[in-house]
């Protein structure tokens, strides 16, 4: 079976949860991240806790949009906010802007005092990023997202956490950024962003060109791993038979083929999820 780009992305996001154990895997940056948490739980990380996108902790692992047959817990918003501070949660967030140290912005574009474009507001991202494991999912890798400097630091990156002192960096744990082109991490001496792998069919030059700041690029960049046959089966037959993943990341087809038209997303938003869930 040949994996689509969306399927490669789901698996790359799922890999972010590897080793997390018995904590909440909160994929809230889109269909891909919710699928990633559920796929990890159904395959290599069985103790993960997953939710339904609102306030149920699911005892089984329903398909995207499906209702759980078993509920194992209740996480109303106030407990979700408690859980953020408590840290037993790895969140995969979206971002409208992201810089090389992993500072993110979902608040507004332009000057905060009189924004050119008001977005969501910081939501829970300031707390998320200084209190527990955080990764990002960016469905369209572009210089509009990967900027030299974000307009309003909502999520705290490595440099800003260090500057803000021990209370800010004690639990700061910014892990990786997965995009439709590549996996990025912060495994450099100054914790700036590094190209960790490129997805099949993507060149290093393409990623560099679509990143608005200087990206650390190792001499050899590995290819993002392909989904296993079992992972593809679980994704296609169990978790996402309606192929919502393909709407979020249209498959570019074989190299050289014209790209499929991207589904239009809401302005300024990272994904088509239900945005009422805490960030």
């Amino acid at each position, binding site marked *: 079976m040949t994996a689509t780009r969306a399927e490669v992305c789901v698996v790359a996001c799922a890999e972010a949860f590897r080793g997390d154990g018995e904590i909440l895997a909160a994929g809230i940056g889109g269909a891909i991240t919710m699928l990633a948490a559920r796929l990890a739980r159904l395959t290599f990380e069985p103790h993960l806790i997953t939710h339904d996108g609102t306030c149920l902790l699911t005892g089984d692992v329903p398909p995207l949009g499906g209702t759980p047959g078993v509920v194992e817990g209740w996480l109303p918003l106030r407990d979700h906010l408690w859980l953020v501070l408590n840290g037993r949660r790895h969140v995969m967030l979206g971002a409208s802007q992201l810089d090389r140290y992993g500072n993110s912005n979902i608040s507004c574009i332009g000057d905060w005092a009189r924004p050119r474009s008001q977005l969501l507001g910081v939501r829970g991202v300031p*707390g998320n990023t200084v209190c527990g494991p955080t990764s990002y999912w960016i469905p369209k890798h572009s210089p509009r997202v990967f900027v030299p400097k974000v307009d309003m630091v909502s999520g705290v990156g490595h440099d800003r956490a260090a500057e803000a002192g021990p209370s800010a960096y004690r639990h700061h744990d910014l892990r990786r950024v997965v995009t439709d082109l590549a996996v990025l991490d912060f495994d450099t001496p100054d914790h700036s962003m590094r190209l960790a792998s490129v997805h099949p069919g993507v060149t290093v030059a393409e990623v560099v060109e679509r990143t608005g700041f200087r990206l650390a690029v190792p001499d050899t960049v590995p290819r993002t791993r392909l989904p296993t046959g079992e992972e593809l089966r679980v994704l296609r037959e169990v978790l996402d038979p309606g192929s919502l993943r393909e709407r979020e990341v249209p498959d570019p087809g074989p190299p050289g083929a014209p790209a499929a038209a991207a589904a239009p997303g809401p302005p300024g938003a990272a994904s088509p999820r239900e945005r009422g869930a805490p960030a």
Partner: protein
Amino acid sequence: MSGKVMSVEEIVGSLRSGMTVGIGGWGSRRKPMALVRALCRSPLEDLTIVSYGGADVGLLCAHGKVRRVIAPFVTLDSIPLEPHFRAARQSGAVEFTEYDEGMFMFGLLAAAHRLPFLPTRAGLGSDVTRVNPGLRTVRSPYPDGEELIAVPALTMDAALVHLNRADHLGNAQYLGPDPYFDDLYAKAAERCYVSCERLVDTADLLKEGPLQSLLISRSMVTGVVETPGGAHFSTCEPDYGRDETFQRAYVAAAADPQAWKAFRERYLSGDETSYQEAVRQAREGA
């Protein structure tokens, strides 16, 4: 029924311009929209609105009622961005105090417990401290010596919340999956007004929900009003879900001044009864 039962006009009539008003619910969920619509019709202005914001904030901005918004976000959930709040921010029509969601909860908790502040890690290192230069830090007096943000109490003059059931004394019950923070709003405000889908006898409160669903005690409630459909177009589960069609129409109308004028004319020019009638007609026409 006697007790604390009031009309939406009486509730709004008891408020004053310049007040700080908290609004319960979350995003586009269980918002006390009948009370918000009454606020829009009132002569009140210069309000400070404290809210996990949705169309409550947007509508009040669109009606020129707001001086300041205190919020971690304003969203319609299934539609991410609230058009009237965006317009108000982008034109500089309102002031904004932007908080992290957890910080905001600590502000409510502090007010509810009559504390001046509560410490939190949330906000450290982010630009929240840059855009709210009034925020102070506090150092732990214990050996850890941690320096944390001191979130000031979000004390309010009045809180408005919408629940599924209430009795005439103001005991109020939620039947949906999430209490949100409505009891904290009630405890954090000088006065709290409850609107509900249905007023019931006190003896009937446990017929529909368990003990734990009795969220707000009458000791925190100044007035209560029955407003069926009073959270429309936000959710009020299990009584009804979000009216997504209406919400889309609301957002579409906001994109154009003429369309917005027509929308206001059709839905918001009369009282709550005529609003609900216009919604019913729109639904039957659809």
